C-alpha cells in the first residue's frame, strides 16, 4: 500500500510541477483576493487585527476550492481513473494519495498568500505556533472534505458551482475555528481559548478522516 500511495502522490506532484495548472490558478486567485481585500479594508489599519483573521481564512477557503475543482480532472482525461480503479490498488489508498496531494497544493498556495496578508495588513504574530497549528489542521480538513466531494462531483455538470455549495456548509466550523485561533495568534482583543479551538479542529480532522476515507471507497466504484 505504501508504494502504491507514494506512486499516486508522486505522479500527481510530478504532473502538477510539470503543468503548474492547479498551483498557478490557486496562487493567482488568492493574490487577486488579497488585493481586493487590501483595497476594501486598508482604509482603517487600526482594525486590521479584527478583520485580518477572517481575510486569511476566506482567502484560503476560496483558493483551496479552485484546486479541489481540478484535483480529479487529470483522472478524467483518457479514463485514467479507471486505470487506477481497475488496478489492485484499494480505493482508500487512492483517496489518501489524492488528499495528500491536495494538502500539499493548498499549503504551497497558503505560504505566500498568508505572508502577503501579514505584510499588507501589518499583522503581528504573537502566538505563531497556534497559528501554524490551526493552518495545518484547517488545511487537512479542507483537503479531506474537498477530495471526497471533488471525486463525487467529478462527472457532474456545473461541478464548479456545486462543489462550494456542498463543501462550504461542512467547512464553516473549520473556518470559524481557524478565525478564532488566528485572532488569538495576532493578538486581537478577543476572549477565546485557542487550544479549545485547536482541539476542535483536531477532532474534526479525525472524524472526517475516517468518514471521508470510508465514503470514498463506497462511492468511487459506484
Amino acid at each position, binding site marked *: 500500500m505504501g508504494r502504491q500511495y507514494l506512486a499516486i502522490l508522486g*505522479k500527481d506532484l510530478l504532473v502538477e510541477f510539470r*503543468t503548474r495548472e492547479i498551483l498557478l490558478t490557486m496562487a493567482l486567485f488568492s493574490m487577486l483576493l488579497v488585493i481586493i481585500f487590501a483595497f476594501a479594508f486598508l482604509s482603517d489599519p487600526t482594525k486590521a487585527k479584527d478583520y485580518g483573521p477572517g481575510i486569511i481564512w476566506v482567502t484560503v477557503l476560496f483558493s483551496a476550492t479552485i484546486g479541489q475543482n481540478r484535483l480529479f480532472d487529470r483522472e478524467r482525461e483518457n479514463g485514467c481513473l479507471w486505470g487506477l480503479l481497475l488496478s489492485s490498488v484499494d480505493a482508500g489508498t487512492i483517496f489518501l494519495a489524492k488528499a495528500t496531494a491536495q494538502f500539499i497544493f493548498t499549503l504551497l498556495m497558503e505560504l505566500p498568500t498568508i505572508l502577503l496578508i501579514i505584510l499588507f495588513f501589518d499583522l503581528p504574530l504573537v502566538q505563531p505556533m497556534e497559528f501554524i497549528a490551526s493552518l495545518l489542521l484547517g488545511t487537512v480538513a479542507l483537503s479531506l472534505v474537498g477530495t471526497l466531494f471533488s471525486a463525487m462531483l467529478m462527472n457532474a455538470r456545473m461541478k464548479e458551482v456545486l462543489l462550494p455549495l456542498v463543501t462550504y456548509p461542512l467547512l464553516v466550523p473549520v473556518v470559524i475555528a481557524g478565525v478564532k485561533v488566528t485572532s488569538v495568534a495576532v493578538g486581537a482583543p478577543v476572549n477565546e481559548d485557542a487550544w479549545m479551538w485547536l482541539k476542535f479542529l483536531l477532532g474534526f480532522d479525525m472524524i472526517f478522516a475516517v468518514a471521508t476515507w470510508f465514503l470514498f471507497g463506497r462511492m468511487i466504484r459506484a
Partner: protein
Amino acid sequence: MADLALKVDGIAKIAGRRHILRDVSFIAGSGELIAVLGRNGAGKTTLLSVLAGRLNPDRGLVSLEIGGRPLKGADFRRAVAILPHDLLIYPDLTARENLEFFMTLTGKKPDADFIFATLDTIGLAKDANRVVRLFSRGMQQRVAIGRLLVLQSNVWILDEPTTGLDEAGRRWLLDLLKAQTAAGKLILMSSHHQGEVSAVASRILLLDSGRVRLDGPAGPQGATAAFAIMDEGAA
C-alpha cells in the same frame, strides 16, 4: 502460467428499457484468443467492460479461477487488464513514467531493465522520455499496450486494440497477441477486421443485439462465416 478459467454465466445488462446484453454465457481458458464480434451496438464494449469489472452486470455472474482458486476483489483486478478506447494512460507523463507508474500500482518496484525492455517491445525506446500528450494516436496506443505488458495480468481484454496503429504496427500487435496466448494468457478482443480475426483468433464469439449468436472456432473459415452472418444482418 497456471491454468485459468473465466466463467461467464447468464449476464445481462440493461440501460433504461434497452437490453444491451441478454443471457450471455461462456467459459474461456488459458491460451485462448477470443474475437468478440458484432455489428455496432451489438454489446461488445459493454460485454468487455463487464468482464473487466468496469461495469456491474444487472444479472448473472463473472468469475475467474486460476489454478482452481477463485479470484475476487484486488486479486481479480490484478489478474485482469483492459485496454478500452480511452487508453487509461496519463498524457502529461512520459512513456517511461507511465509504465513505471502502472508497474508500481501492481505493488512491484519498477525494474529499469524490464521497463526498458517493454519500451523496446512497443517500439518506443527512443521516445521513452517524451510526454505522451505529444505522441500520435498510434504511439499512444503503443504506450497503452505497454501498460498491459507491465501489469503482467493473466487475462487481457482489448477493445479494438489496433485502432490508430499503422499496418506495421497492426502486424506487430497481432504477433504480440499470438506470443502472449502461446505463453498461456487468455485474451478477449473486439474487432471489425476479418483479416485480424482469421490471423490470430482461436475462437469467435459473435454478439447480435446483446445475445450470443455464434460461439465457435475461428481460423479463416470461422471468421468468414461470422462476418457473413454480420453482413447478412446488416443487409
